[in-house]
């Protein structure tokens, strides 16, 4: 341990991270930077980024980036979960090579020394394009390309891209780096995005690098978006700035607002190799013959109007329902198909409760088919629903609107509004059907929690019992619960709604039966289902003993034991369960309680006993009510005895007479 650096935290026994040596200049928006050291190679200059506890990270990106060595990316050496003393909990840590030249751009409003036209290709474009090509080959979309996330690896020598893995894709991107469609979505609802989105961000970054500042600094996100829609991104960002002629072509290509026309990595390759391509012509939306007046503003295009209507939602609903929008489309824009669709949307909506909201959501899709799904204050691209929910949970907000949007099948309408087929959308449509089904169920293992884990593969389990352990995988759950057993209330369950949903989402084995039994009203069934789930995980994840958890669970199995009718059996179980529980073997504990033969025998014997008890009861009632001796059987018996005695007297008399006469 280096002197004066405090107690380090070890990552995979190789990298030491010093919590008392923060490096604020290397912080990411949602991660803090600290000094780090390699035990094997002491001379390396490293730093570590420590994640925020509540955001899902991109572990697949970490896995890929760890193996990549390219000039345009900050080298990721290692990643993993570490215990972070400052937070008193486990957190995700990433160890990077420390860039010696510092951050390229300190903040979105900051100015910095511009990269001149002779150096921009060599020092910035080439390394960044190479990094994108490397990651694209591995099917990784970076979604973090911006000068505030770029560093000089050596002073003014080569620019590298910083972290792309500690926050959801594009979550940290300022709206200026996002295309019109993704900028319309909330930062958490942008989805994974495409390579084309990365190329657009590269274009914006190159503009800023060449200018040494943000050309649209001080303009709020909505106004910027309006400007981009009205004038195109290129016009807004480049304006009258004096940029090298050689770069105009590439910037026009990268900043093209039509994703179909935007340059690809292949086009960039051609440009890098010296081929000059014909510049793209600016395309603007069709304008109406007269303006649509709304909220004291004039709107001429569908896209602008769509944005305005959803921004002022309640007023927008009135515009749609009263038919003003249809009229404008029909008369001013002369777009009959759109006008007809809007008319049909309003007609179908009728006077039902909340119909106006659905009508506006659908109308916004008709006005701008490529825009995100917009519903009240939500604005989410279909692929961004998972992150949006994760952010909502992280910010401890009720995802009520989110759930309402899915339950009312707004995404389904978005897919129905597509004019071309895309297999990804079919898959997503299926996902939304599944989510709607989950939201319709209130049982443990379903609901919003299930949606959260199903949509976010890397979301750590948010149960208060294990949240500090940063549980990402099912096999990490039992050790976390074993730790939690030390402080948990012994009467509380080790499975809550979050854990049940986490298990249901992460399990690659059949858990349908115990999961459905978990919410059974009968405590003997639900307690056994709880044990069953935990035992299944232990069996699948390996047979590590969990004595703390075992003892905790054993203490909760009273109702399951009570499920046995025989007192003798119950007593035997009550003796055995704590013993087995303390061994930490949940599988054995479950087998002890779920012995099918023993349960069947118990049920059969109990049924016989019930029947016997009932017979005795009836006999006793007969005795107690005095029916015995007074009923038909007693009378009949008396008559039989009388007849028998009489017949015997006659027989004896006859015999005696015969004997007397003969002898």
């Amino acid at each position, binding site marked *: 341990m280096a002197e004066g650096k405090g107690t380090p935290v070890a990552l995979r026994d190789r990298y030491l991270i010093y919590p008392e040596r923060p490096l604020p200049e290397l912080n990411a928006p949602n991660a803090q930077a600290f000094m780090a050291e390699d035990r094997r190679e002491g001379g390396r200059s490293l730093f570590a980024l420590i994640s925020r506890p509540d955001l899902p990270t991109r572990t697949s990106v970490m896995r890929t980036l760890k193996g990549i060595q390219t000039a345009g990316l900050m080298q990721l050496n290692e990643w993993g979960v570490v215990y972070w003393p400052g937070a008193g909990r486990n957190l995700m840590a990433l160890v990077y090579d420390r860039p010696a030249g510092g951050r390229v751009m300190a903040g979105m409003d900051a100015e910095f020394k511009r990269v001149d036209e002779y150096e921009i290709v060599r020092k910035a474009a080439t390394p960044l394009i190479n990094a994108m090509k490397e990651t694209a080959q591995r099917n990784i979309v970076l979604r973090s390309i911006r000068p505030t996330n770029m560093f000089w690896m050596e002073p003014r020598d080569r620019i590298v891209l910083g972290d792309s893995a500690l926050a959801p894709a594009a979550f940290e991107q300022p709206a200026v780096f996002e295309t019109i469609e993704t900028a319309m979505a909330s930062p958490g609802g942008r989805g994974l995005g495409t390579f084309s989105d990365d190329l657009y961000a590269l274009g914006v970054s190159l503009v800023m690098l060449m200018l040494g500042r943000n050309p649209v600094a001080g303009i709020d996100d909505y106004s910027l978006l309006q400007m981009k829609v009205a004038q195109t991104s290129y016009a807004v960002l480049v304006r009258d700035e004096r940029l090298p002629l050689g770069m105009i072509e590439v910037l026009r290509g990268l900043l093209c607002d039509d994703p179909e026309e935007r340059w690809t990595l292949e086009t960039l390759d051609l440009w890098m190799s010296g081929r000059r391509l014909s510049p793209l012509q600016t395309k603007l939306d069709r304008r109406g013959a007269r303006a649509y007046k709304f909220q004291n503003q004039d709107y001429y295009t569908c896209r602008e109007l769509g944005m305005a209507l959803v921004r002022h939602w309640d007023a927008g609903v009135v515009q749609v329902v009263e038919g003003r929008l249809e009229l404008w489309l029909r008369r001013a824009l002369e777009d009959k198909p759109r006008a007809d669709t809007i008319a049909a949307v309003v007609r179908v909506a009728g006077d039902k409760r909340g119909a106006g909201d659905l009508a506006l959501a659908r109308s916004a899709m008709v006005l701008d088919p490529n825009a995100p799904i917009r519903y009240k204050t939500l604005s989410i691209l279909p692929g961004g629903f998972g992150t949006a929910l994760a952010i909502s949970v992280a910010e401890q907000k009720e995802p009520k609107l989110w759930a309402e949007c899915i339950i009312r099948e707004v995404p389904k309408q978005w897919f129905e509004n597509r004019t071309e087929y895309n297999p990804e959308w079919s898959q997503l449509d299926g996902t939304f059907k599944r989510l709607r089904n989950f939201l319709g169920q209130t049982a443990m293992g379903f609901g919003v929690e299930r949606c959260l884990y199903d949509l976010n593969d890397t979301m750590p389990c948010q149960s208060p019992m294990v949240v500090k352990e940063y549980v990402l995988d099912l096999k990490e759950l039992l050790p976390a619960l074993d730790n939690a057993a030390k402080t948990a209330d012994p009467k509380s369950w080790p499975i809550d709604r979050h854990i049940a949903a986490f298990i249901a989402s992460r399990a690659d084995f059949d858990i349908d039966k115990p999961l459905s039994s978990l919410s059974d009203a009968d405590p003997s069934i639900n307690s056994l289902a709880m044990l069953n789930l935990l035992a299944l995980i232990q069996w699948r994840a390996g047979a590590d003993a969990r004595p703390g958890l075992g003892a905790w669970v054993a203490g909760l199995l009273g109702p399951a034991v009570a499920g046995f009718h025989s007192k003798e059996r119950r007593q035997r179980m009550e003796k055995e369960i704590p013993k087995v529980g303390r061994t930490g073997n949940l599988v054995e504990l479950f087998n002890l309680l779920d012995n099918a033969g023993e349960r069947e025998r118990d049920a059969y014997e109990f049924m016989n006993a*019930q029947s016997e008890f009932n017979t005795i009861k009836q006999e006793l009632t007969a*005795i107690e009510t005095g029916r015995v001796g*007074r009923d038909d059987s007693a*009378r009949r018996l008396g008559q039989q005895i009388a*007849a028998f005695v*009489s017949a015997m007297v006659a027989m*004896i008399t006859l015999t005696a007479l015969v004997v007397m006469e003969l002898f």
Partner: protein
Amino acid sequence: MAKPKARGKAAPPPAPAKKGGGTMVLMLMGALAVPFSIPSIIVLFFSMLPTAVAALVERPPGRFAWLAVGGLNFAAVAPSLFGMWFGNHTVAAALTVLTDVTNLLMFYGAAAIGWTLYASMPSLTGVFLALGAQRRAGVLRDQQRKMLDLWGEDVAHLEE
């Protein structure tokens, strides 16, 4: 043209084979024996009248009254019959038996005792059965207690 369907009742089943051939033979033999046993029949007819009444008035099920009355009735008649069979088996002797008040008292008295026995025995049996039931109730309650100990209260609630 289709044949018209048969109307009315179906053809009667074949007559069952005649039973009771043995009974007929016995009745025939009894009828042949009547001229030789008229005195006994006279005595039996009049002396066994209470038995006949008991047999006629009693309704099924059971029909033990004729046996209870008849057994003692016959036991009282049997000495007189034996006296006739092994002495003077004539109609005059039969009438002598029947006109003797002591004999009649004995015949009908025995029948009365038979009836009394038949009438009183059910009550007597009931008393004995009730006494046995009290002992049985104790045993049954003990058995229930053991079952409750072993299975708990639920054993008492039989689900239909």
